[in-house]
C-alpha cells in the first residue's frame, strides 16, 4: 500500500513537471529581413557543406564532377548525401527538427521548408532572379518576392516509346495523337510483341496531373484557389482507372507500392510495355541501360495538349552551419557554364535564360531532348502555377491515394473526385496558415 502511494506520488510529480514545462521545440527566431550579405568565393577554403541530393541516374555522376570542380575552385569540401527520392521529405524534416539542417538540398517542392530557407536575393541582389527564364524564376519566389530556391532544372512530362516494338508491330510513331489513339496503338504494339501491358506511368501525383491537364483541368488555379473541374477530373480518372483496372496499365505495380512514390521505369526497361509516361530525367538512365531502341514521343491531346511541368530546385538553409557557403554553392552550380555542363551529361533541361535562349547541346539523344523541349510550348500555362503552388504536394498525395481506392474497387470515381476536391481545399488552407 505504502509503495503504491509512493509510485503515484512519483508519477504525479514527473507528470506535473513535464506538463508545466515549456512548449516543445525551439522558440522561433525570425530576425526579419536583414541587410544584403556579400559572398566572397575565396573565403571558403577548408570549409564543409552538406548537400542532400536525390538522383534519377546519370545526373549523379554529372553532379559529382561539377562538385569536384567547385571544390577545386574554392577549396571547400562538399559532403554529398544521396537519399532515395521517396524518403527525401522525411529525411529533411527529421534533420530540420533536430537542428541538423544540411547546407543545401535538392528538392521538387521547396515550400515545406520556406521558414528555413535562404533568400538568394540577399546574397546575389534583386537582379538574381532575372538570370533565369521568367517562368522558372517565378516558381522559385514566394508571395512576398523573396527568392527561396534556385531552379536547377525544369522537367516536362511526356511519353517514351519502345521504337523496336512499334516497328515490329508495324505501327508508325505518330506526330500527334489523342489518348484513344495512343491506347489503341499501344495495345496493338503490346499484342504484337507479347508484352503484358500497353501503357505505364509512374505512381506520382505530378504524373497523374498530366492526364488531368490533358482532360482539361488542374487542381490549383493561378489565383491559388481550388480549380478542379469535377466533371473533367471525373472523366480523366475514369479513363485512367479503367486502363489500370483492366491491366492495360499494370495494376499490380499501381497497387503494390503503398503510399510511396514509385517509378515504372523498370517495367519499360524490361521490355514489358511499349509506352511509358514519365519525363526527360529518364533519358540519361535509358540511354545507358535500355537494350532496345526507344524515343520520346509527343503527349496525347484530349481537350488540351502538352505535358505537365515539374522542376527541381536547390535550396540553402538559413540555420545550417554555413549559410553563406550554402548560397555560394547554389549560385556557383547554376552559373551559365556550370549548368550547361551538368545539363549536357545529366540530360536536364536548362533553367537559365541564356541557356534556354541558346539551347544546350547534349552528348547524344538530342532529338529526344528537343522533343521534350517542344512539349513545353504546348503545355497550358495554368499547369505551371498548379505545379508550383504551395498546396500542390499535399493535393497530389490525395490525388494518388483517392485514385488508389478507385483502382482497388473501394470507391467510385465520383466519390474520389469529391474527396480530392476536399483535400485540395484543406491543403490550400494549410498552406495559407
Amino acid at each position: 500500500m505504502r509503495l503504491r502511494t509512493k509510485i503515484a506520488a512519483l508519477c504525479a510529480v514527473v507528470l506535473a513537471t513535464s506538463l508545466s514545462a515549456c512548449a516543445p521545440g525551439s522558440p522561433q527566431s525570425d530576425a526579419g529581413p536583414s541587410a544584403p550579405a556579400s559572398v566572397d568565393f575565396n573565403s571558403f577554403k577548408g570549409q564543409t557543406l552538406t548537400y542532400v541530393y536525390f538522383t534519377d541516374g546519370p545526373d549523379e555522376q554529372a553532379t559529382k564532377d561539377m562538385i569536384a570542380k567547385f571544390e577545386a575552385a574554392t577549396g571547400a569540401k562538399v559532403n554529398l548525401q544521396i537519399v532515395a527520392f521517396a524518403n527525401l521529405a522525411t529525411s529533411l524534416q527529421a534533420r530540420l527538427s533536430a537542428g541538423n539542417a544540411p547546407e543545401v538540398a535538392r528538392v521538387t517542392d521547396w515550400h515545406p521548408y520556406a521558414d528555413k530557407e535562404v533568400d538568394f536575393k540577399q546574397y546575389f541582389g534583386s537582379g538574381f532572379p532575372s538570370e533565369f527564364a521568367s517562368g522558372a524564376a517565378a516558381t522559385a519566389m514566394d508571395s512576398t518576392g523573396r527568392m527561396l530556391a534556385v531552379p536547377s532544372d525544369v522537367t516536362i512530362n511526356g511519353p517514351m516509346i519502345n521504337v523496336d516494338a512499334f516497328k515490329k508491330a508495324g505501327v508508325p510513331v505518330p506526330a500527334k495523337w489523342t489518348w484513344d489513339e495512343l491506347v489503341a496503338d499501344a495495345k496493338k504494339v503490346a499484342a504484337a510483341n507479347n508484352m503484358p501491358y500497353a501503357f505505364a506511368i509512374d505512381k506520382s501525383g505530378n504524373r497523374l496531373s498530366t492526364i488531368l491537364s490533358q482532360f482539361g483541368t488542374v487542381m490549383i488555379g493561378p489565383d491559388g484557389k481550388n480549380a478542379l473541374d469535377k466533371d473533367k477530373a471525373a472523366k480523366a480518372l475514369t479513363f485512367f482507372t479503367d486502363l489500370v483496372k483492366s491491366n492495360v496499365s499494370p495494376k499490380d505495380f499501381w497497387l503494390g507500392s503503398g503510399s510511396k512514390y514509385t517509378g515504372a521505369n523498370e517495367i519499360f526497361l524490361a521490355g514489358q510495355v511499349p509506352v511509358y509516361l514519365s519525363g526527360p530525367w529518364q533519358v540519361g538512365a535509358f540511354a545507358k541501360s535500355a537494350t532496345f531502341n526507344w524515343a520520346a514521343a509527343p503527349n496525347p491531346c484530349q481537350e488540351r495538349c502538352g505535358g505537365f511541368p515539374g522542376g527541381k530546385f536547390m535550396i540553402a538553409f538559413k540555420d545550417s552551419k554555413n549559410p553563406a557557403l550554402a548560397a555560394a554553392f547554389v549560385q556557383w552550380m547554376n552559373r551559365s557554364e556550370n549548368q550547361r555542363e551538368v545539363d549536357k551529361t545529366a540530360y536536364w533541361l536548362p533553367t537559365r535564360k541564356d541557356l534556354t535562349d541558346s539551347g544546350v547541346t547534349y552528348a547524344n539523344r538530342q532529338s529526344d531532348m528537343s522533343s521534350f523541349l517542344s512539349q513545353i510550348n504546348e503545355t497550358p500555362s495554368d499547369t505551371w502555377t498548379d505545379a508550383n503552388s504551395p498546396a500542390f504536394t499535399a493535393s497530389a498525395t490525395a490525388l494518388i491515394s483517392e485514385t488508389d481506392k478507385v483502382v482497388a474497387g473501394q470507391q467510385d470515381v465520383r466519390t474520389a473526385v469529391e474527396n480530392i476536391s476536399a483535400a485540395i481545399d484543406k491543403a490550400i488552407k494549410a498552406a495559407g496558415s
Partner: protein
Amino acid sequence: MSAQTPSTLAQRSGSANPQQPKWTSTGGSAPSTGAVVRATLLIAGAILVVTPVLWAAMSSFKTQAELAQTPPTLWPNHPTADNYTSGLQAFDFVHFLTNSIIVTVSATVLTLIINSMAAYALSKYNFRGRTVLFLITLSTIMIPLQVILLPVYQVIASFGMVNSLWGLIIPPAATPTGVFLLRQYMLSLPDEMIEAARIDGAGEFKIFLRIILPLSRPALAVVAIFSVIWRWNDFLWPLIVAQDESVQTLPVAIARFASQQAIPFNQILAVSVVTILPIIVIFLFLQRHIIAGLAQGSIK
C-alpha cells in the same frame, strides 16, 4: 530498449535438468509411425522456411531481364556476378558493416556493464527506493521504443546526438529486459560468498567484478545474444537518427538503397544476400552455444 522478455518472466522455479528432454518414446526400437510423421513434418517445415532465402540468393545471380521474365525461372539461366560487382560498387558494404559492428558491439558491451551493475544492486542490496526502481524497470519492459519515438528523438536532438553513432548506441542500452533477467539470475547466487569477501576486506566493486560477474556468465550470455540480435536488426531508430551515410548501419543503408529509383532490383537482392552472410556464418559457428544458451540462461 526492445520489449522482448525472456521466458523467465513466468517461469516457475522448475527443478528439472534442462539438458535432458526425454519424454519421447524413441527408445532404441524401430521408429514408430509417429516418429516418421514428425520427422517428415519437421523437414518439410524447415524446407519451407529456408527456401525463400535460398531462392532470393539464386535470383541475385539473374539478369534484370530474366528477373522480370514470366513465367519466372527457378535457376538463373545465365548466372552473372554483375549484380554483385555493380551492386557493391554503388553500395559501400564494408563501411555500413563497420558501422553495424561498432554499434552492435559497443551497445552490447554497454548494456552488459550497466545492466549487470543495476541488477546486482537490485538483487543483493537493500536500499531505499529499490522496489520502486525495480517496478519502474519492470513496467517499461512493455514500452517499445516506437511509441516514444518522437520524444526520445527530441531528447537526443537536444543532446546533439542526432547523426552520430552515439545516438544509436546509448539510448537503447539500458534495456529493462536485461536488468530483469540478470537480477533474477543473481538472486539465485549465494549471499555467503559476498559476505565472506567483505570480511576479507574486498571492496564493493571488486566483489561485483571478481565474484558476481563470473558467476553470472550464463545470464550475461543470454543478454548478450538478445542485445546483438536487437541492435544488429534495429531499423526504425537508426532510420531516423543516422541521417548521413557515414553513420548508417546495414539495415538503414539497404532500405535506402532499395528505394533508390536508379537501382535495379537484382542488385538490391545481391546486396541483401551479402548482408545476410556474415550473421549466418557467425550463427553457424556459435549455433550450439546460442540455442543452448537461450534455453539454459532463460530458465535458471
